[in-house]
């Protein structure tokens, strides 16, 4: 019985590890940055992730962009002091990546934004997160969940392998 329980427990652990491993990839970031605090005062996603509408990646704001506000706003906070440290040393901030597509996948934000999709469709309600977390596994099945259900005549159906695996 005991062994059976242990085995079951380990299976559960493995499942959690495999399934959520990529989802919960978020680790402590080098700066205690809060998405929630920034979004709740009304800053739009695209204010910082400016490239999402015109590039394959959404982009992480440059240190200069952060300093554009934080040279004047909330300058006393511990996290902002850490930011100022990076700025003064001329160093980039080594953020831990939260969402990722492997190199063998061609993915671009631009067309997804172009058809009017919202950020939260894929990235979840970041407004409620301190640290950004991956809310989906972003694997091929997940992509096809949307694309396969597009109308057959629509260009967005994109079920040819070579669309993403060029």
């Amino acid at each position, binding site marked *: 019985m005991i062994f059976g329980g242990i085995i079951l427990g380990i299976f559960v652990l493995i499942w959690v590890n495999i399934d959520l491993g990529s989802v919960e990839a978020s680790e402590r970031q080098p700066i205690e940055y809060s998405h929630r605090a920034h979004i709740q005062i009304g800053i739009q996603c695209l204010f910082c992730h400016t490239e999402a509408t015109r590039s394959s990646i959404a982009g*992480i704001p440059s240190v200069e962009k952060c300093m554009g506000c934080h040279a004047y706003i909330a300058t006393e906070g511990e996290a902002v002091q850490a930011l100022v440290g990076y700025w003064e040393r001329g160093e*980039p901030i080594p953020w*831990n990546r939260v969402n990722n597509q492997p190199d063998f996948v061609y993915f671009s934000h631009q067309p997804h934004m172009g058809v009017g999709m919202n950020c939260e469709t894929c990235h979840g309600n970041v407004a409620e997160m301190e640290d950004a977390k991956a809310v989906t596994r972003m694997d091929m099945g997940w992509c096809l969940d949307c694309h396969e259900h597009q109308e057959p005549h629509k260009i967005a159906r994109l079920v040819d392998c070579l669309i993403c695996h060029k």
Partner: protein
Amino acid sequence: MSIDLSRREFLKLATLSVASTAGACVPINSRTKDILEPQVLPPEDILPGDTTYYASTCRQCPAGCGIIVGTINGRAKKIEGNPAYPINRGKLCARGQAGLQDLYHPDRLRNAVKQSGGRGSRKFEALYWEDAIALLIQKLAGIDPVRVAFLGGKMPDHLYFLSSRWLEAMGAPPLVRFNLQSTLDGRITASKAAQSLFGSRQLPIYDIANAEVIFSFGANFLDTWQSPVAYSQQFGEFRQGQAGGRGFFVQFEPRLSSTAASADEWVPLRPGTDGLVALALGRIIVEKGLGHVGAFSQEEADLFRDVHVGELAEASQVQVEKLEQLALILASADRSLVIPGGYPAGQKNGFASYKAIQGLNLILRRIGQRGGVYLSQPSPIDTLPGAPAMDSFMEIMALIERMNSGEVEVLLIHGANPVYELPSAAGFVEAVNRVPFVVSFSSIVDETAVQSDLILPDHSYLETWGYQVASPGGDRPSVSSQQPVVQPLYDTRSTGNLILVLAEEQGGEVAEVLPWANELLFLEDASGGLFLSSLSPYNVKTAGDFWSAWRQYGGWWTRRELYQEPDVTGFFDQPLKAIEPSFEGESEEYPYHLYPYSGVALGDGSCAHLPWLQELPDPMTTACWQTWVEINPQTAHSIGVKDNEIVKVISPYGEITAVVVVYPGIRPDVIAVPFGQGHTDSGHYAANRGANPMQLLAAVSDEDSGELAWGATRVRVEPTGETHELARLESLEGEGRETIR
């Protein structure tokens, strides 16, 4: 089969296996950890995640093609040809594509170093640049400038200009330059022959695209010869009938190169007899009055006065009937073209062969004609001069002599690897030991850098500025620009800038003639003169706009094609003479001619540090990653060797070991060995792999051109009884492979 397992044991084992599987899963997830580093100060013209393209110049071989480098997030990702550049017109070869690996090479030096354990110790101590420069200035200040020597090689034209001016202002002897690929291309002979025949040292260019019949003497222009990308493209036009029909192509070469394999007819010529065959063809044409009536004058016909076809047929082992048939093909076409290549130039009669071959172009009325021979255009502006052809082997031997006699106290080496690229018999290593202070500017520790005291690594060519006047050029005057496509990855310094810093420190006249604070200001200043040219392709209104266009398009060239026609001045002093080839090594003891050749992947060996090129199979033998020796099946049978057997190749000057490739596409009296391997250093992909055929070659040259006679050494082959399976895609004999019947 049954296993006696109790329930308890089964559960133990199952638990253990599951636990180990769970443990193994942890690293899988940890591998997904990834760091994103946004820029501190983002450049305004770069869109993160999107490709930004920069036009620049390839420096992987002396051809100088125009390139477009795609960069994403400040990292170079892909190199392609520049479609606007008139030499390569958007195409690029494998070596050009592999330039990215030169940039990202793990063995690149990351800062200035001195060899603390003495030369050859390979013990390097990092130096601050200030200290390294101070050390060099101190060494230069303490000696008479005539005791300084600068050995250059594959250096960009702006560096040639700056370093030449620097040496002249110091009162030092002029720059001496050597590059193995240029030697294998026969550039020195071509340039000296052009000087003698056409009164200009500009390299001839051959209008292959518009020719009807091409006879190529050892010019493997689809492999590596001179400007292979440009000529390959022209060859496509030649085959697709630009001149009115599918062109006819005959290749004379002892080995079936991939150029010869693309020919309609391959004539495996006896080594060194290219000039003899050309003379015989010329004699037949003038004697029989072949071709168009009045195509050649009596004066031109007299050039072949002393030629005896029967003797030359015997010497070249091409039958008279065959020569007559070839002469008829050549003379009957409206636009036939004869091209002298690298292998005839690498013989002791190379200069005479070139004259004979150009003599054929003369009587066929192909000089300065469409589908014929033109000269490369010089730089369109004096402030951006193109570097002349490399110095000959004789001039390198003169430098070695100076070093041996203790006349050189400081030796500077940029873009050349003489320890690897010169025949061991030339004695460069012994000579360099007599030079008290040697400085290398190599970005990778190559064989020559190991023999230096101080290494001041230059940037990769994708990190720095420059310009290049392509030679051989294209169909119009042009100069290509080189610009950094990424920030320098390491604490390296551009040698051009370094020379300007040295000049400023030295002060006086030296500083006066090199007044620019850095090479960028020099280039902006020197290229600015083109802004007002009426031939300019850009519609720009200010000097600033010109500078932008210069970088955006990758250089400057005229809107329309503009060929330079050679003046036929130097042919008629005396009739053309047949000079029999001669070889080093007695034919009884050394029965085979050695044909060392430059392959499409590694070329002259300067690209051997790039693994993409190591992995690229040779187009004819499909071999890679090693040195092999190509032997005719008949010869292999007589020696008693087969594929994959290791043999010793022995010349009077040295020996190497290599793996046999039995190759039907080679004369029985010739063996071929590719250049490229046999490095002792040059990064871990190149080091201690294969053999360098330079160890076999005699240090002899053609007396008329001074060019190294790299094809004039005889060898013998001895089996060792050992085997080594060569990395090959397939066996040429088809052994072990099913054949479709």
